[in-house]
């Protein structure tokens, strides 16, 4: 009897020893199974199920395969994907409680906290991130606008005077310029000047090509507007100017053209507003201006804030110019007020 008892006890002891020995092994198998199940759940698209499964991975001091950290970080990422930021934070902190120096957990916590910020704070931070580049582009846009605004009224006036000139070659040339530059897309003109002319041996820097294209195009448009303005001035004005002995040039300069200012301000203002936006086209000939900068930022960060900011800057410009042109129009017509 005593002998039997002793054998049984020995057998039990042996089994339990074996079990103890085998225990870690079987647990490792369980963990792999858990990750496998989680992957299946994710493949099905059932993220909550994956989270529940992954949470089964227990904490173990002897665990050196990193399964616990791996599982909890995975949980945190899934919770993050589900936009449950407090839960994601909690899961990350579970890891940090055990391994305070884990860099993956620390980085992840930072980005979770950033996500938890109010939207306007994130927007503001994005603004600060994109603004320097966008403003650099905006400076180029404004430079292009100003240069074109200086060139095109002069070119336009010349073209207008040419159109009404009795000297045929001049008027035909001006008609041709208008016909050509109003009849083709600005984009095509820019391409031709920058990419096309080099094959004829004429090469321009991007900026020169941009100014040339915008300047010619807008001169053609303003030319027709200015011609209309000049011809809208009552014929008696030219006669009165001539009657006191003025030459054609003096009459134009002193009498006719000054009277067109008020009439020309609205349509020219319109053209210049269009110009601000048309400068975006020069981004296609290697110019980095506002549109191009915004595009670069958008592509680098895939962040729509860059585009919104660019739109706002364009709006600031167009609003400012609208306001200025209204003021000038009012000033130019001061003599009509009774």
């Amino acid at each position, binding site marked *: 009897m005593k002998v039997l008892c002793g054998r049984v006890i020995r057998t039990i002891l042996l089994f339990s020893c074996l079990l103890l020995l085998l225990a870690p092994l079987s647990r490792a198998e369980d963990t792999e199974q858990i990750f496998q199940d989680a992957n299946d759940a994710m493949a099905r698209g059932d993220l909550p199920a994956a989270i529940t499964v992954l949470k089964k991975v227990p904490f173990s001091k002897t665990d050196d395969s990193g399964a616990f950290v791996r599982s909890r970080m995975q949980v945190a990422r899934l919770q993050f994907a589900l936009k449950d930021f407090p839960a994601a934070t909690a899961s990350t902190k579970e890891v940090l409680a055990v391994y305070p120096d884990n860099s993956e957990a620390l980085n992840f916590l930072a980005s979770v906290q950033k996500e938890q910020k109010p939207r306007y704070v994130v927007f503001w931070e994005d603004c600060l991130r994109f603004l320097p580049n966008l403003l650099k582009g905006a400076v180029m846009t404004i430079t292009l606008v100003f240069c074109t605004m200086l060139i095109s009224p002069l070119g336009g006036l010349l073209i207008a005077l040419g159109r009404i000139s009795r000297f045929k070659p001049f008027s035909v040339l001006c008609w041709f310029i208008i016909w050509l530059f109003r009849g083709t897309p600005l984009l095509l003109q820019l391409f031709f000047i920058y990419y096309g002319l080099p094959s004829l041996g004429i090469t321009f820097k991007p900026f020169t090509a941009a100014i040339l294209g915008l300047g010619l195009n807008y001169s053609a448009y303003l030319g027709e507007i200015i011609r209309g303005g000049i011809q809208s001035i009552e014929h008696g004005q030219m*006669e009165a100017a*001539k*009657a*006191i*002995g003025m030459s054609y040039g003096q009459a134009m300069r002193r009498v006719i053209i000054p009277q067109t200012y008020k009439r020309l301000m609205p349509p020219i203002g319109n053209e210049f507003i269009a110009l601000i936006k048309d400068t975006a086209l020069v981004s296609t000939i290697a110019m980095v201006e506002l549109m191009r900068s915004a595009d670069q930022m958008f592509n680098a960060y895939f962040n729509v804030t860059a585009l919104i900011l660019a739109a706002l800057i364009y709006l600031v410009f167009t609003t400012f110019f609208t306001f200025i042109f209204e003021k000038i129009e009012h000033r130019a017509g001061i003599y009509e007020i009774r």
Partner: protein
Amino acid sequence: MKSANQPLLSLKGITKRFGALTAVNGVDLDVCPGEIVVIIGPSGSGKSTLLRSVNFLEEIEEGTITFEGKEVGYVKNKHGRRHLDTPQKICALRSEIGMVFQHFNLFPHMTVLGNVMEGPLTVQKKGQEEARHIALDMLAKVGLSEKRDVYPATLSGGQKQRVAIARALAMRPKLMLFDEPTSALDPELIGEVFDTIRALGKEGMTMIIVTHQMGFAKEMADRVIFMEAGSFVAQGTPEDFFANQMEHDRIQSFLSRIL
């Protein structure tokens, strides 16, 4: 060569055509210094065209214009075709002949003073001070000194026309042309403009005036001319004209319509 009875302006065979239409048909006219010639006639008879031809605002096809004893305004090119003289010459001539229009044609973007200064300043290239001085004199002459700093838009028709007269006078012209200076005015404003013209006449200004105001013609004119279909039909001193020429049917019917 200048003598007292040499005409200031002498037109010979002035002919102006607009396509098939002959607006002025071989007109002869001598205007002596200090003389006031009034031209009347129905609408479309070529009165404006004649005045504008004198000022080279119309280029005439035939005839000669002699101003101060010199034939002026037209030259022949090497093919023998005549055309207007150089712009410089034409401008110089125009600056010696003042013109006042029916619709004033003041420069709306300049003040009253600016309008009157413009000729001396831009055409005669006088200094700002001198031009201003001349302009103020002329404004005083037409009685509008106090309006010097306003824009024409604020003036009445009569005031506008007086400013237009001052603007022409500022160039110190030797001859003044008036093309229906009161036709665009309300009746009560006609008087002030004629007062101004009358004062000019008293100063000895030589003038050709186209008008429908017969009272003024009777009072002021040294000579009245009736024009019809591009030609002078009748002329004479006012007394003569209104007394004797009344026999002329056309003139009578014209006058009866006007008066």
